[in-house]
């Protein structure tokens, strides 16, 4: 029970910690409307409240649309998170419309928090009644929380260092990879209910990094690591990365040209 609680905590809570770090880093360079501790605390309260409400309705959602409700619900959320991350990625160097970008970040945080949090609350409440397991669960919660917090703090400072020393947009690229990981999750869910086609896996990297290992779980959360990806997953991953990068390149190259053009006109 103890190990299981720690693992479930890592699986469900780590994405919330990681998205918090990535979004904080995303807005750390903003001069106005920088997210404060108060703002973060309010968002956290909102996430917990919504996750509790969602966990209450999960059973009804699971029975909707011929038993495909949960997959459709979760994949819609993950798709939105990916789309919003494209907007944040493309506008990463712009200081305009910061308020809207913060609202988008808040929605992303709420979606990731609610979807993962509701799952964990379901597990937690399901076994709360078993008195002899409560102690193990509580220890597991503290251990899992500690591990997640440690990883998040380490990740925050590593990315901040990388932003300063290597490339100013390292954390923005990590945010994009994280949300592509969520997109991969959406694809697997849609394949699971036979809405998207499945094919045999392209390779099996399980012998190098097993998905159920600690490193495998961490990579899954960070980048959507998959030991046996299908062709559809592979193509989607590549396109999901290339498109925002191309849009970003086009915008960054178009701006100087536009300024030059306007300069010549005037």
């Amino acid at each position, binding site marked *: 029970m103890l190990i*299981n609680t720690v693992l*479930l905590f890592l699986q469900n809570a780590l994405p919330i910690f990681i998205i918090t770090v990535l979004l904080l880093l995303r807005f750390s360079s903003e001069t106005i409307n920088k997210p404060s501790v108060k703002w973060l605390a309010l968002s956290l309260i909102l996430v917990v409240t919504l996750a509790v409400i969602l966990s209450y309705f*999960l*059973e009804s959602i*699971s*029975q909707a*649309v*011929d*038993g*495909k409700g*949960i*997959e*459709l619900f979760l*994949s*819609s959320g993950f*798709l*939105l998170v990916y*789309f*919003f991350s494209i*907007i944040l990625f493309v*506008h990463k160097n712009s200081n305009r*419309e910061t308020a*809207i*970008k913060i609202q*988008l970040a808040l929605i992303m945080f709420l979606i990731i928090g609610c979807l993962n949090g509701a*799952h964990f609350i*379901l*597990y937690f409440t*399901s*076994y709360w009644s078993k008195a002899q397991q409560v102690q193990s669960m509580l220890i597991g919660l503290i251990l899992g929380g500690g591990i997640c917090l440690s990883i998040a703090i380490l990740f925050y400072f590593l990315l901040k260092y990388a932003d300063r020393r290597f490339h100013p947009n390292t954390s923005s690229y990590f945010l994009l990879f994280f949300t592509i990981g969520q997109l991969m999750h959406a694809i*697997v869910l*849609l*394949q*699971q*209910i*036979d*809405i*998207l086609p*499945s*094919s*045999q896996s392209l390779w099996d990297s*399980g012998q190098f990094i*097993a*998905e*159920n290992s600690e490193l495998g779980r961490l990579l899954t959360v960070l980048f959507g690591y*998959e*030991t*046996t990806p299908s062709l559809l997953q592979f193509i989607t991953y590549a396109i999901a990365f290339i498109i925002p990068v191309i849009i970003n390149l086009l915008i960054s190259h178009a701006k100087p040209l536009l300024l030059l053009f306007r300069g010549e006109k005037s």
Partner: protein
Amino acid sequence: MIKSVLLHCVQTTSIALLILLSFNLQAKRTEYQIEIRNHLFYPAKIIIPSNEKVKLVIHNKDDNVEEFDSFDLNREKVIFPHRSAVIFIGPLSAGEYSFFGEYNPYSARGKVVVKEQFQDQQTIKGEQHVN
């Protein structure tokens, strides 16, 4: 500008899901039934043909929530007490693919055996669970 892009994102997501649902003209899949009782899978071993997508219907007869989970099959699904859930697996190459109940990983364990030469046999009789 961002507002219009945001609206466009929500519309695109909704339309994409609607299109996916409308194209969901599923072929008839072979169906396999699994039960969860006392945190064990019955049967714990299922034999399916290779290179074919099949439908697993999992019935949770317990009073607790369980999650069907498999790293090998790349599937996970929460099954509520006294409810059933459907997942599709495959096409798979020959081999063994393990699955487990995420909330009771030490007791609820099973495997899907994929065979090239598939005989008309869906479960191995006599073997009720792997423990």
